[in-house]
Structure formats: structure tokens, C-alpha cells
């Protein structure tokens, strides 16, 4: 293909300069990427996009014609567009909530095994946090060993996945009283993690819930069991096991790969695996083994949220976000990509087949045809981690140096802004932040979260929105792929204060922090919830009274639907960059973008243009400020 045309295509697909270099290489080498597959999928079915396709039972599949005078208006069972759209949305949401919560459960199980002395390589690192959490759960700490406390805490949390306890501790004590009152009034206080998910799956069966309002209320309750349940446990117990994140400096983009070293990419979501790889990689005997194979050492790099987990805690460099996964392989410099689960393209082994890269799957629940499966168990974690690294080292001599291209400019970034760090940076209380908001120095705060989606130019939505907001003196906190996007764009540095409005710049400069704060992985959106809750408590208001908003400019995943819903259910106005599959029901659309605000205080909006999204977010923040009288 003509070089000029390739450059044009690449410019349309991403704003990540390092990714552009490798995307050009991928195109010239005929390596297929998600962008090609999106193009091949055009046109995509309108029934599906509008959410009016129901493929649930064997009387179907059915679809509702969106035009008034033509075509079927009910499925074979009699479901209307409202029922089908609401059911589909609940189905997507329950999958997202299950993904987060099942990840959370695995971490709590590792804590239990560690407490019982049955795991290998793990330790209880943040004892202070462990004791604090035990306090929240009413577990005695005085005179008890950390193992005893951890065991009780793990069991108490695992109980909340079941149905006996009928409540989730964090959802009881952490939200502000006014927010909880709202949930009680509406009847959406989550009862357990698994229960809400299972009940959601029950409700979407034919002949169960047909009332779209009732279905959506349960969707909100299910999302709360994720945000204030499964996800929050994942965050908190990861902190207990691996340490609560503190500010770290690291590098980001595909340029973090090293020409002369064994490059290992850690891709997926769960730190239970990646943290053990990090631990094993520092083993001198393995480093020596790498040298014996002609490499200068072992270079680990993260990808997606497991990348965020090890970045936040260990400062491990991060190679990129979701749309960078195939490009990392296309550098020709990756010996192994170790995957756990979520957001891993099933075609990744096909991509790897074009190079020497080995894909190593590690979770019993996430196998990919063509991958080497080396199953990971807490009992043998460190041994498996060593074996995996050894396999990557053995693959180093197979690298073809003529096909290697590594972008030259990794970008420096600062991450590790956990709730605890933010509070500490403010001097141990949120009062200074509230004062800064009251005085207008910080107009408000926005959480930008979520994925990449090839329908949006990679990182353009995230980066443009973040820049627009900080320019308007609005503080930005981020997680997931959004945070990685900002890292690549240089926004996660104190120097980025130059791009912020004068007032915000002066505040973040005085604290020595960036105007865009990296708060972690996608389950760490729960850190944002706790932050919002404690600010609201300090002010004696509901979360919905705060001058804040959420945004997911490039979302694609069911997990993002659950996150968006728990933000809305907690009272946060949330702007999506791509429409959820609900537009085929004007009633559902109206409820989620208007009516729901009167019920829980938050609502959704859809705005693909990030500059316009900043406009509506700013208007919302102004409205909330006015209502607070500031």
C-alpha cells in the first residue's frame, strides 16, 4: 500500500504516536487488527445497535421493527421494544458486574488461602488497611495475628457473595446517609453480590420481568452490588495483599519495550497473577538465565488493567491500553504475552502467529485456542510464575531482529493516586479540597473511565475530554484504559498543569500533583466512589449534590455498563461517548437520560464529541454549584 495512504489510515485510527509507528508496520506486514475487523463488520446490524433484537429463546430470534407502520412490534412471546431493550441492557450489565465481582472473589480467596498458609508467594502486606477493613466488618483485631484477622475478613466477604447475610457491608456503611436513604426508598439496596447477578439472569428469562422500569431498577441494584461490592472488595483486598498504591513514576506506550531484553507483556485484569510474575522476574537466577540466552535481562510491561495494577504498586511500565494489544506483538519484540482474563482479543494467538511471540493463558476460565496454557493456582503461584518467565526466556533466541521495531519515545507518567494518597496529600482531611471547590479554584471533579473502542479514534475521546476539563479548572481522576490514554498523552505529569486553567493549575502545583490523577484499574472505580462518598459526608450532602460527573468516552465493554450504572445509581451524572444499545426504545432512553435523575439523582447522557461533552459536563457542574450556593 502507498505510504501516504497508510499514514492517512493510521492517523484516522489513533492519536497515540508510538502506536502509529507500529500500526504502520502491522499494515505493511499484513497483520490484521481490530480496526480492520471493524471495517469488515460494516454495516453492523441496526436491530442489534438499537437493542431491539432478542436472541434469548428458541421461539426467536425476534426483532422489533423501528418504523411505526411496518414490521413486527412484538416478539413471538409478546415482548415489546421496551421489554426487549431493558432485558438486553440488564443482560449486558449483569455480565459486566459478574466479571468485576468474580475477579473480586478470586482475590478474596487468595487472601483466605494466604491467611491459612496455603498460598505460595503471597503475603499480607498492608496490615493497617487489613485492620481498618476488619473494623468496618466488626471483626476483632486486638491481640490477634494478621492471619487470623485476614481469615475472618475473607470469610465475611465471601459470605457477601452468597445469600445468607443479605447485605453488603461496604454498601451499608460507606455511602453518605442521604444516598443510602434514596436507595432504600427506591428499593435498590444491594443484598449480595451473586444474588443480584443471578436474579438478573433470572429476570431476563422469558415470562419473568416484562416491565422495563422494574427491569432497570434491578439493573441499578445489580450495578451497586458490583461498585460497592465485588469491585470494592477487589480493590481493597488487592491493597491488603499487594500494598495500597502510592505515587510512582513510570513510563508508558509501546516504547517501553526493550531491544536487548526478554520482553514480557502482562495483559488482563487480575493482580493475583501479574504481581507474582513481577516478584519472580527479580529472581537473580532467572535474570542470569536470560543472560545465558543472550538477553541483557527481563523487561516486564503491563497492558490494560493488570498493567494498571502493577504500575500503581510497583511502577512497572505499561505498554498501552486495549487497542495496543495487537500492536505490542507487531513490534516483533515480545517473547511472551501472559494473559489472565477480560478484554483479551480471542484473535491474539492469530496475531502472535505472525511473529515469535508466545501467548500464555493462565486462568482456567479463559483459554484461547493456540495459547500455551500454564494454569495458575495460589498454592503454586510463584513456581508457575517462574516457569512462565523461563518459557519466555527460552523464546528469546527465536526473535527475528530484522522484524523488530520499537518506538523510540516512551512517555513519563505519574500514577498511584489511591484514595488514601489523595487524602494524605490534602493533609489528612477533605476540607482543603472542599474549600478549593467552594472558592471556585477547583470548579468540580470528573472521573473519566472506560475502554478503547475502534469506532472512536484511539485515545482521542479520553485525551480531548481530559484536556478540555482541566482547561476549565475541573479536576480529573481516571482509571482503566482512560488513565493509560492520558499517560500516553503526557497528562499524568505535574507539568501538565500548564494545560490547566490558572486556578486549577495553582492548586495542583502547590500539591505537586498532576491535574489528571491515575487512580487505578477499572475495578478501582470503587476508589472514586469512596472518594465521592467521603467528600459528600464531610459536606453533609448526598453524592448527587456534588459538582461532579463521570464520563466514558470510548467505552465498549459490559463492565463499563455496570460502572456507568453504579455511578448513576450513586447519584453521578455520566456522559457516554458511544450510545448504549437502547435507542430502539424511546421509553428506556428517556428514563435513563431524564427520568432516573428524579429517582436516584444521577442520569446518563450520550455525546460522542468530547468538546461538547465537556460543555454539558461544565453546565452540570455549574448547576450543582449553584444549588449548593457556591
Amino acid at each position: 500500500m502507498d505510504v501516504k495512504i497508510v499514514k492517512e489510515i493510521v492517523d484516522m485510527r489513533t492519536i497515540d504516536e508510538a502506536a502509529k509507528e507500529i500500526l504502520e508496520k502491522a499494515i505493511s506486514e499484513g497483520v490484521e487488527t481490530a480496526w480492520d475487523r471493524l471495517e469488515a463488520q460494516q454495516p453492523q446490524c441496526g436491530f442489534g445497535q438499537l437493542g431491539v433484537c432478542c436472541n434469548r429463546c428458541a421461539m426467536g430470534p425476534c426483532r422489533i421493527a423501528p418504523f411505526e407502520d411496518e414490521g413486527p412490534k412484538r416478539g413471538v412471546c409478546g415482548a415489546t421494544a421496551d421489554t426487549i431493550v431493558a432485558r438486553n441492557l440488564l443482560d449486558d450489565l449483569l455480565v459486566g458486574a459478574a466479571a468485576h465481582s468474580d475477579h473480586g472473589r478470586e482475590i478474596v480467596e487468595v487472601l483466605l488461602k494466604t491467611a491459612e498458609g496455603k498460598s505460595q508467594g503471597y503475603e499480607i502486606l498492608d496490615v493497617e488497611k487489613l485492620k481498618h477493613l476488619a473494623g468496618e466488618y466488626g471483626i476483632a483485631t486486638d491481640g490477634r495475628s494478621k492471619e487470623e484477622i485476614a481469615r475472618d475478613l475473607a470469610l465475611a466477604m465471601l459470605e457477601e457473595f452468597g445469600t445468607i447475610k443479605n447485605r453488603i457491608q461496604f454498601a451499608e456503611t460507606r455511602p453518605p446517609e442521604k444516598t443510602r436513604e434514596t436507595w432504600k426508598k427506591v428499593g435498590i439496596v444491594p443484598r449480595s453480590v451473586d444474588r443480584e447477578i443471578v436474579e438478573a439472569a433470572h429476570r431476563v428469562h422469558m415470562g419473568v420481568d416484562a416491565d422495563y422500569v422494574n427491569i432497570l431498577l434491578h439493573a441499578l441494584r445489580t450495578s451497586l452490588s458490583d461498585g460497592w461490592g465485588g469491585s470494592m472488595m477487589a480493590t481493597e483486598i488487592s491493597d491488603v495483599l499487594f500494598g495500597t498504591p502510592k505515587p510512582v513514576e513510570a513510563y508508558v506506550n509501546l516504547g517501553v519495550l526493550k531491544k536487548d531484553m526478554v520482553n514480557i507483556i502482562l495483559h488482563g485484569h487480575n493482580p493475583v497473577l501479574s504481581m507474582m510474575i513481577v516478584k519472580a522476574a527479580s529472581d537473580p537466577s532467572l535474570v542470569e538465565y536470560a543472560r545465558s540466552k543472550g538477553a541483557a535481562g527481563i523487561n516486564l510491561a503491563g497492558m490494560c488493567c493488570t498493567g494498571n495494577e502493577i504500575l500503581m504498586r510497583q511502577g512497572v511500565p505499561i505498554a498501552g491500553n486495549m487497542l495496543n494489544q495487537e500492536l505490542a506483538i507487531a513490534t516483533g519484540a515480545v517473547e511472551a504475552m501472559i494473559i489472565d482474563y477480560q478484554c483479551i482479543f480471542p484473535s491474539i494467538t492469530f496475531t502472535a502467529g505472525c511473529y515469535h511471540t508466545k501467548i500464555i493463558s493462565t486462568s482456567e476460565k479463559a483459554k484461547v485456542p493456540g495459547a500455551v496454557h500454564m494454569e495458575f493456582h495460589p498454592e503454586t503461584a510463584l513456581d508457575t510464575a517462574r516457569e512462565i518467565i523461563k518459557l519466555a526466556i527460552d523464546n528469546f533466541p527465536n526473535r527475528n531482529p530484522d522484524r523488530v521495531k520499537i518506538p523510540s519515545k516512551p512517555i513519563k507518567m505519574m500514577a498511584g493516586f489511591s484514595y488514601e494518597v489523595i487524602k494524605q496529600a490534602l493533609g489528612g482531611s477533605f476540607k482543603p479540597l472542599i474549600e478549593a471547590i467552594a472558592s471556585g479554584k477547583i470548579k468540580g471533579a470528573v472521573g473519566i473511565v472506560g475502554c478503547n473502542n475502534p469506532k472512536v479514534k484511539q485515545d482521542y475521546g479520553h485525551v480531548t475530554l481530559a484536556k478540555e476539563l482541566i482547561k476549565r479548572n475541573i479536576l480529573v481522576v481516571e482509571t482503566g484504559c482512560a488513565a493509560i490514554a492520558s499517560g500516553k498523552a503526557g497528562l499524568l505529569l505535574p507539568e501538565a498543569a500548564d494545560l490547566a486553567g490558572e486556578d486549577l493549575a495553582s492548586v495542583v502545583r502547590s500539591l505537586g500533583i498532576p491535574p489528571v490523577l491515575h487512580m487505578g484499574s477499572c475495578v478501582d472505580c470503587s476508589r472514586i466512589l469512596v472518594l465521592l462518598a467521603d467528600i459528600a459526608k464531610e459536606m453533609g450532602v448526598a453524592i448527587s449534590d456534588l459538582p461532579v460527573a463521570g464520563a466514558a468516552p470510548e467505552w465498549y465493554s459490559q463492565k463499563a455498563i455496570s460502572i456507568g450504572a453504579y455511578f448513576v445509581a450513586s447519584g453521578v451524572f455520566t456522559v457516554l461517548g458511544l450510545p448504549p444499545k437502547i435507542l430502539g426504545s424511546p421509553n428506556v432512553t428517556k428514563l435513563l437520560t431524564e427520568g432516573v435523575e428524579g429517582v436516584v439523582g444521577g442520569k446518563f447522557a450520550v455525546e460522542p464529541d468530547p468538546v461538547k461533552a465537556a460543555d454539558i459536563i461544565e453546565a452540570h457542574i455549574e448547576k450543582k454549584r449553584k444549588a449548593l450556593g457556591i
Partner: protein
Amino acid sequence: MKTVFVRPERCIGCRHCEIACAVEHSRSKDLFGAFFEDPRPAPRIHVEPGVDFLTFPNKCRHCEPAPCMEVCPTGALYRDEETGSVLVNYDKCIACAMCAMVCPFDIISFRKVWHIKFLKTVNYKCDHCVDRQRDGKEPACVEACKTGALVFGEVNDIIRSSRRDFTLRTTMALQGEEAPELPESIVTFREIMKKVAHLGPLG
């Protein structure tokens, strides 16, 4: 003459017509059977993406006079007098592509078909489902279309109906009444997707 009339504003890109067409022109005429046939049946209607995620179902218009018939050197293209459709005699087709060059809609392409023993590539364009028409049925694509983007009937009847709609909307507008051409859901969806198209790689 009866024709398949396209109302592009109603096409939402579901490609149901493509599947129905491929199945109709398979040996088994069955979705699951068609999947295992060799050659694998292919649609003769094409829902192509245009700008802003809009789509257009494109197929043979069965022109009269038909440029493809005029230029065919072997006389493979002929008109079915009963339905007015332009058909292909696969035995006579030599895949020279003269027909494709003059087709005003660029809908002629070539592949192997099961209908002839000799597995050569031929012009496999739309045959207007003449077999179905003889049985009093609509073409398969029209039957599959649930949005009314494809309608089958006497061309003047269809146009008369559209004209009546237009008159209704115009007079309603004169009376200050809201008379949307498309449902609100579709309007909102297309507005959003237009923005997505302009900001993303598919614009």
C-alpha cells in the same frame, strides 16, 4: 411491471435480505443446509456501508432496456417476458464482464454457482426470484426486510403511496403540526452515529 423498490431511509443495515437471498439461491434452500454447500451460496443483494454509518441495499434493477443485455456477446443475458426480469443463462456466460462494465449500479459480479455442472464463474446477479414470483410470493429479500426498506409491487402503486405520505406531511407542516418522516428513535440514533463517524476511523 413489478419491482423491488428501495426506501433507503428505512435501511438499518441488518443484512437480513442478504442472508435470505443467499439461502433462496442455495441448492438446499435451507439456512443450515446452505452453510455446508460447496460452492457456498452468496447474496445477490448487497447492503453496503456509505457515509455516517448509513447503508443502501443495492441490487439489479432489471432495467428496460438493459445495458448489460445490449453488450453481452454470447446472448447469455435475456429477459423473462412473464415478469420482465433480466436473467442469466449460466451455460452461455463466459464471465467476460462486459455486462459489469456497463451496469449503472455496479451490482454484477462473478462466482461459481451450483446450478450448472461445469464449475466456472458466471454473472450471478439477482434473478428477481422469478420462481417465487411464479408461486405468487415476494422476492426473498423483500420478505426478509422487516423495516420496509425493500417493498415489492407495481412501481407506480408504490410511488403513489409514497406521494400520498409526502402530501400528508406537507399539509400537516403547513398546519403547524409535527409530521416526522422517521421515528424519533431512528433520528436520534442517526444523529449520534453521524458524530461518531466524523470523530472515528470510519468517517
